């Protein structure tokens, strides 16, 4: 056995220790085969009176291997997926029906398949350690806790607690787990095995309640119990808050609904069928691939060029102490890096540092950070107006006003002091990096690091390669992002780079709909219905109309007649120039902000943009997704993007493109490129050339080429637990 070892002891209590290669135990084929064999051996060996199941790792078991589960869609039929699920279900069933008591001595984190394994044991003893979280988080990857997870948790914890945990995917620490009765005992680490042995010594009955003849399922009376009926009604209504794009929550609710009514094995079978449906659904594949596999791969350096020593920033200069600079200074100091925070005068720089004090203060208040540690972070930030303090910096991040001349001057002032090997990063979100690099003494050491606002909460950094940016500079930039524990994507220089460029498609599409007579509430709700967190009109109010219009004006200035202004330009100009409403800061654009009340769509919109009745919300939903996906495809075609993973990560973490799609490019692959091109042609006819597929995309469609190829999956080598 490669993933565990069985040791017998004289007292008859065998210890089965999970100890797979690598840093953690995960559920995969090898594990299941070993567990089947171990269980058989335990049943056959009369000298074994009981089993203590524990782990040799820091964690007990972190879940199933997502690298295996990601392949469910497209390779397995639902029936094959059911058979796959049934094998794990039977493995757990064999444990609980082995005729011998098993006690899970849970020495650390037990999530997903790990906690399902513990649930199959006859007793669960959890180590008293806050890190030893237990739970069934599968909903977060578009799946349900199969192999008995929903059924056993439902019976053990009851409908209400089970659904709370299953639908939220929330894990709980030892004390709460004990209170919820999902573990039986919590003991200090050094008493774990003793406690397990002590329980086994009581000669416990190894028959689960549901295997005793005459057992009735807790909700056998089904919907004839008014309280249960009302509860399921409310839970089903609650699903609407998550939306209608994700099949997992409804499948979980259905599993529990049936699981509590049916005889145990029938309940397991129904759960397995729902699991099989989810595993073969593209949504699970999309969520797992982008938000787990691609994300972790990016964080572990999937885009880092090889052959350069690891770079560690010890001292960083942040130029500009506005909102972005202040945020970058905070996340850098928080990562243990010394920060020189520069602005035009020390008072302004100090204001930027105050932001860190504010964020840290809140963490201390919530008990998430000690005052000492907060003080240490703050002490790393030196606010100043003196560029000389940049001496000895490993790199700088420039976050001054978005103006080429100002940036050029700042670059020169900084480089006058900076060591020769230091890299220079600009946080610009709009100005071409190659152009800014012209002001640098060494354009090969000049790179774009586009952070998102608020910097301390947004995990993505869009790395922009200028024409001359060297691979070494890229490696350093990525190493710096890894120090900050953020997720990088790498794009090539062009107007708006990637994220800003495609995000414009969303807000312009929404604005364009207004001119077509779509009611503003429908514009907003259609975007939210596809899973965008905020409607485009609300986004525009926050951004102010000046920003997207400035981008348009700049492009017109540069390209003149060759440039086609995006779809919502006319509406934005009318709002700003004719109607005089340009954003929240100036009292509201598409929305009104009554004092002390909730914001609401501005009633006057209908006077300027008369509403028509023949809108179709499904068509609007499609337009949002297609417009963004098509522009992303263009970015790949133009080599602004180099990989589908960068595209998808940027979409989800950059501007909130819905995770169920897997990102803008996964969305195309999910629909199927042929259908995507056909449908885009239809949309282009109706709404304009922004939907028109290029010759390149048509060619891909004709060949039936997906964006993701089997080769794109090889970026991760380690197993990855759910």
């Amino acid at each position: 056995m490669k993933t565990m070892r069985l040791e017998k002891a004289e007292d008859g209590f065998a210890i089965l220790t999970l100890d797979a290669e690598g840093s953690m135990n995960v559920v995969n084929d090898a594990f299941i085969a070993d567990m089947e064999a171990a269980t058989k051996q335990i049943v056959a060996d009369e000298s074994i009176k009981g089993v203590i199941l524990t782990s040799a790792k820091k964690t007990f078991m972190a879940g199933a291997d997502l690298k295996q589960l990601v392949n469910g869609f497209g390779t397995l039929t639902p029936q094959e997926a059911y058979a796959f699920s049934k094998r794990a279900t039977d493995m757990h069933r064999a444990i609980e029906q082995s005729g011998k008591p098993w006690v899970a001595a849970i020495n650390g984190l037990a999530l997903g398949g790990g906690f399902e394994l513990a649930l199959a044991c006859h007793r669960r003893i959890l180590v008293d350690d806050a890190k030893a979280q237990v739970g069934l988080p599968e909903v977060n990857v578009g799946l349900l806790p199969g192999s008995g997870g929903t059924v056993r948790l439902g019976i053990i914890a009851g409908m209400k607690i089970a659904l709370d945990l299953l639908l939220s995917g929330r894990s709980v620490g030892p004390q709460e787990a004990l209170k919820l009765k999902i573990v039986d005992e919590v003991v200090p680490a050094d008493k774990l095995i003793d406690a397990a042995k002590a329980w086994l010594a009581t000669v416990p009955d190894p028959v689960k309640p549901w295997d005793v003849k005459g057992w009735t399922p807790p909700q056998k009376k089904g919907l004839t119990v008014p309280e249960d009926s009302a509860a399921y009604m409310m839970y089903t209504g609650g699903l609407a808050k998550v939306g209608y794009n994700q099949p997992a929550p409804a499948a979980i609710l259905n599993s529990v609904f049936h699981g509590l009514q049916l005889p145990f094995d029938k309940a397991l079978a129904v759960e397995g069928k729902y699991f099989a449906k989810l595993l073969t659904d593209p949504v699970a594949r999309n969520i797992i691939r982008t938000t787990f596999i691609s994300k972790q791969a990016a964080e572990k350096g999937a885009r880092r060029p090889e052959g350069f020593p690891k770079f560690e920033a010890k001292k960083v200069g942040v130029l500009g102490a506005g909102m972005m600079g202040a945020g970058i200074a905070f996340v850098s100091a928080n990562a243990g890096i010394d920060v020189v925070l520069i602005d035009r005068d020390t008072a302004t720089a100090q204001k930027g540092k105050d932001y860190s004090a504010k964020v840290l203060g809140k963490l201390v208040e919530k008990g998430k950070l000690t005052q000492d540690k907060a003080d240490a972070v703050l002490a790393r930030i030196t606010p100043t107006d003196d560029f000389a303090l940049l001496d000895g910096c490993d790199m700088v991040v420039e976050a001054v006003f978005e103006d080429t001349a100002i940036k050029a001057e700042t670059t020169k002032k900084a480089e006058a002091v900076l060591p020769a090997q230091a890299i220079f990063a600009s946080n610009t979100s709009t100005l071409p990096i190659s152009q800014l690099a012209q002001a640098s003494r060494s354009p090969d050491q000049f790179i774009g690091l586009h952070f998102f606002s608020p910097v301390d909460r947004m995990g993505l950094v869009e790395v922009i390669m200028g024409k001359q940016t060297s691979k070494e500079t890229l490696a350093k930039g990525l190493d710096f992002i890894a120090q900050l524990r953020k997720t990088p994507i790498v794009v090539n220089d062009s107007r708006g780079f990637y994220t800003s460029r495609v995000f414009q498609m969303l807000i312009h599409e929404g604005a364009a709909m207004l001119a077509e007579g779509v009611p503003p509430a429908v514009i907003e709700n259609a975007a939210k219905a596809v899973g965008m967190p905020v409607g485009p009109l609300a986004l525009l109010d926050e951004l102010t109309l000046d920003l997207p219009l400035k981008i348009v004006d700049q492009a017109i200035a540069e390209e003149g007649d060759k440039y086609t202004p995006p779809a919502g330009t006319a509406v934005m100009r009318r709002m700003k120039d004719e109607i005089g409403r340009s954003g929240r800061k100036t009292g509201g654009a598409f929305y009104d902000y009554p004092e002390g009340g909730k914001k609401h769509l501005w009633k006057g919109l209908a006077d300027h943009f008369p509403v028509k009745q023949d809108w179709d919300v499904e068509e609007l939903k499609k337009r949002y997704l297609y417009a963004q996906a098509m522009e992303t495809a263009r970015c790949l075609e133009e080599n602004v993007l180099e990989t589908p993973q960068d595209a998808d990560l940027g979409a989800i973490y950059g501007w909130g493109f819905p995770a169920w799609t897997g990102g803008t490019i996964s969305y195309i692959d999910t629909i199927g490129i042929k259908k995507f091109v056909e449908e885009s042609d239809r949309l282009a006819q109706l709404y304009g050339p922004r939907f028109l597929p290029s010759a390149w995309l048509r060619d891909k469609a004709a060949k039936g080429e997906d964006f993701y190829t089997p080769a794109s999956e090889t970026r991760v080598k380690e197993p990855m637990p759910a």
Partner: protein
Amino acid sequence: MEAYVYDHVRTPRGKGRPDGALHEITSVEMATQLLKALQSRNDLDTGLLDDVIIGMAQPVGEQGGVLARAAVLQAGYAQTVAGQQIHRFCATGLDAVSLIAAQVHSGMIQAGIGGGVESMSRTVMGYDSGAWTSDPSVAFSNYYAPQGIGADLIATLDGYTREDVDNFAVESQRKAAHAWENGYFKKAIVPIKDVLGDVVLDHDEHMRPGTTLESLAKLKPAFEGFGKAGFEAVAKAKYPEIEELNYVHHGGNSSGIVDGAGLVLVGSKEFGEKAGLKPRGRIRSYANIGSEPTIMLTAPAAVSRKALKAAGMTEKDIDLWELNEAFASVVMRFQRELNVPDDKINVNGGAIAMGHPLGATGAMILGTVLDELERRNAETGLITLCAANGLGTAAIIERV
């Protein structure tokens, strides 16, 4: 074959709560007392009846097991009289009458009794539940939301303010009080007696005469809790034109929860001759329909048009309209859609004032319309109800 209405009776409506006057009276007992009353006031040879259909919106527990047959036997009717139970949510009571009429129309039976009963104090809403609300796979894909959300959705879409719907409720109370004061319901009411034979209730107990806008303004919206728990999101998924739901309905402008029963005696011409009874009205047509289930309550206009078409009539041919006041917005939407003036609809008030004993209401309001047509010496009436899951029923009657 024509189907005639020979008589109709109803119980007074008791508050549907443990302190309501009818709480000690079982559903089968209410039906039994009404059957006895129909027999005795018409000196009816019950052997002439073929079928009794009694429906309810909660056909479970003491209201289950084909209550109609139990009541037939309990009332001492001839044992040859068949019994049947139907369930079409709030459409039930009227639909039961239509089903008797349909059998008469087809010539397969000569006479029968249709109607409904509901003890909401004893068989609480939700006892019946069902897949449509509570089987997650069904309720989710069907975008189920509670009826109150549908009522508030209508108000939001149509722009009815809290004051509009409260005004409607005040009017319902005023009209009901006026009708009671003037004895308009007297003929139909059968006072309900307890085991000692003493009357426990002889009037509609739920009414609040003197209700004003000010008194209603104090009531909190009843369905916001459902909305915030997720059903507003359900409503928005189906009606994205809603920025947010306007919660305007509450206990004072929604139908009251009450206990009660109503029955209608329907038969052929020959039956009348054999029984020595004079027909009071003719059932011209009846119809059922399904409509969008999330908003749930907007079927009455469409089903009314359907019934009018079946009768070869138009809106102009109807003298009196009666639409069950499930919620104020339901009737307001109906009036707007069919252009029905206030003085032609629910002229003696409705369920907001007097209560809505779910499965019984349809039969009760058919009787109300017939009595009022006689009082006014008018000819035609259309009775309609919205029902759960988007259902709706309607029937058209005419005096003879």
